[in-house]
């Protein structure tokens, strides 16, 4: 038998590894952006494969907004001990009174904690290529992303001026002060991510799996109790729930679910009629929320 056909996951995996290696070969000072979520877990696994048997020669960067779930932070600290990974944590903490989503609004909070934190860290370390785990199927403005997405000095995304891409010959050249955001997982779907987590036995934050949690039900959204959570009026209840995607705790809601294993999650997703970011409050602020955030430099 002269050939072995690659299945859908093999092909996605190979494409992502190719892009990660291309960054390593072409960048001066690259970095992975690590969000602790499932996509970051997959990205980290792929990076290990790309450079095996060596350590990953590109550092991982986590921007800590002080609003992440406790379980995320402890998961991150476990990753920090992985000998194949060099994880840098940049804290972008402001006093709760100075910045929070409840009194300032989600947009302003995101801009100040996430976007500013990210741009500041990129500038501070002089990173030229920042690799992230964003996927094109997540949200409509992300469906327009290139693998190598150019940002101007202040992080601005000029989508009308993107260089078109043609297979493996990526244009990785940068003018002074410009940077690239690189998205090796562009063509993965949410289900692909879980299929791969299952196949490769990749560890993810336990919040993704269903268990009975105490939640505050606010306009149909399940917010779980957390250190940073400022309880508002609403019904508090014990429900079986899990998180479909993870972000800052005040702005990320759980979904009602009994899926407590990877295969149960895949089954749930196949049958689901709701999108992945249904629980992300930041996306619903306007018709083009994410696009506006991306133009400002949000990942």
């Amino acid at each position, binding site marked *: 038998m002269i050939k072995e056909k*690659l*299945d859908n996951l093999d092909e996605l995996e190979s494409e992502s590894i190719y892009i990660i*290696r291309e960054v*390593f070969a072409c960048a001066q000072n690259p970095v992975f952006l690590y969000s602790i979520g499932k996509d970051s877990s997959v990205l980290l696994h792929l990076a290990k*494969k*790309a450079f095996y048997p060596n350590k990953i020669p590109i550092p991982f960067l986590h921007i800590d907004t002080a609003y992440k779930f406790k379980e995320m932070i402890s998961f991150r600290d476990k990753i920090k001990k992985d000998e194949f990974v060099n994880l840098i944590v940049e804290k972008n903490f402001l006093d709760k009174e100075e910045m929070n989503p409840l009194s300032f609004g989600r947009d302003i909070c995101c801009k100040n904690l996430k976007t500013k934190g990210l741009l500041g860290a990129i500038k501070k370390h002089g990173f030229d290529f920042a690799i992230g785990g964003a996927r094109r*199927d997540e949200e409509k403005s992300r469906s327009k992303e290139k693998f190598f997405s150019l940002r101007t000095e202040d992080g601005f995304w000029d989508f009308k001026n993107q260089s078109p891409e*043609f297979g*493996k010959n990526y244009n990785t050249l940068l003018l002074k002060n410009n940077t690239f955001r690189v998205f090796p997982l562009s063509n993965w779907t949410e289900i692909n991510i879980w299929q791969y987590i299952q196949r490769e036995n990749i560890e993810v934050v336990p919040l993704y799996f269903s268990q009975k949690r105490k939640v505050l039900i606010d306009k149909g959204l399940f917010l779980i109790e957390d250190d940073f959570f400022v309880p508002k009026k609403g019904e508090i209840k014990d429900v079986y729930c899990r998180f479909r995607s993870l972000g800052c705790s005040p702005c990320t809601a759980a979904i009602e679910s009994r899926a407590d294993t990877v295969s149960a999650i895949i089954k749930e997703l196949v049958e689901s009629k709701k999108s992945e970011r249904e629980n992300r409050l930041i996306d619903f602020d306007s018709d083009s929320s994410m696009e506006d955030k991306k133009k400002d430099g949000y990942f």
Partner: protein
Amino acid sequence: MKNKRKLIRISTAGSVDSGKSTLIGRFLFDSQKIFEDQYLSVKNICEKKGMDLDFSYFLDGLKAERDQKITIDVAHKFFSTKDNDYVIYDVPGHEQYTKNMISGVFEADISIIIIDVSKGFLEQSKRHFFISNILKKDRIIFCINKMDLLSYKEESFLKLKEEINDFIEKINIKNVVFIPISASKGDMLKNRGNNMSWYKGKTLFEYLESFDESKNENFDIRFPVQFINKDKEGNRLYGGRLDSGKISINDEVLILPSNKKIKVNKIVKDFKEVENAFCGQSISLGFKGDYDIERGDLISSLEDKPFCSKKFRIKICWFSDKELKAGDSFIVKSNCRKTVCTVEKIEFKINFNNFNIEKTKKLIENDVGSVIIKTNDYLLGDFYKKNKKNGSLILIDEKNLKTSALALFEDLVNFSETEIEKKEVPIIWFTGLSGSGKTTMANMLHDFLNKKNIKNKIIDGDLFREAFKNQLGFSERDRELNIRMASFVSKIISENGIIAICSFVSPFRKIREEIKNDNPNFLEVFCDSPLEVCERRDVRGLYKKARAGEIKNFTGISQSYEKPLKPDLVLNTGGESEKKSFVKLIKFLDKFIY
């Protein structure tokens, strides 16, 4: 054995209102990829604006696109069927965004072109077809949409099919797939529907699901080295993706450009060493012995090697708003290699209205054409026709670093062939009475060019006649024949990069005009000296003989000289010094001679 789940990439292109968005909306709806929350939010927006549910809201991801109701950049959409995963590269139709259309079609395995059955084969669709044909060949599907609006009549489908076939047969394309569909009603997509029982072919989904890329697979080993790694013992490992073929431990392979034979002694995939690696896999290779291998070198099978050259004919899709001309230079990236190239010649471009080839010296934004480039360093690859994975390159602007073109390797170009070809050198044709100074000017020019090492050759009327053993006389017919032969010879000489310096009395305007029209590089230089002056000079005593009637048909005496009406240059060789005329000549020729 159960078939593996495949990842199939399709591109969708259609002109305005062809129903493309509705078709994609169908794909997504049918595979439940439009979610309740997205559906409700779009419904909400459409209701607010007082419109019916508009599928383009699911597809065009950016505010500017939704506002203008157009696709600007490629949108990537995903759906899956029971057996396969699909990525849709939804591409723009407008000429202005051709680069994004080409990008989407390039990435796709299958190109779908959606056409409104009532609108015919519009120019935008011709462009989609032509690009698809260059990039995808036999993987093009025409979806003839909106059949429901014409009562699903077979005649309307056949009429459009014939119109398209007539057109594309001109460029020798046959066997293109046509499917009559109704995107809004769902006929011939997933289900056949009950309305077009006259159509016996596959439905669109049946075509997609039966896609088999292995038909066109290339078995030659192609492994461009992407980066250099080390194993635990400190031996070098070379990372990259196997573009084609299968590689196994102990295989003897060739490393290019150094052309050395080496033996594979390690293949690393995932977290382990393996015996074999297959086409498409990202792996690392180790070799027996110590070799100097760099990023951009290429590992190949011993037989059927890739090319390794510095000069190519490429098919180019030009995107930049700057014009592309001979002499322009760019950064090139191809198969992990980066170098600089210079454009030697623009050969032609394609007219998208009739698919004709048009000669040109420049390409403008969105042109597709043929160009010859020369690179500073070697490029390794295959012709696109032979191996698509290895057959393309991109050109990057040296100043703004934007991707200016996609190009496909078409052919290698012989160095000596174009070195001459690129210089379009002139034929300098001196005309005037005998004794008007033609030969003097020709000889001075000859010496001048020789000193500058510029190749040239004098073709003199008298020498020419001698060469033909004086078989030709001076009758009108013989003179015409003589000039025609001189023109023919000088054309051959100039096409080979040698400047032809011709001095011929050539008294007849008609024939001079004729050879001028025949050759764009023909420069007519009129040595304007009055008959009295020439006759007074009478260097060879010809005028005396003519006056005595010893020479018949002598120009100026017994035959008229027809002055040029619009010569490229007039030299007043009767009134001014030789030197002054010559300076004038050189000044004039400056822009034609390099």
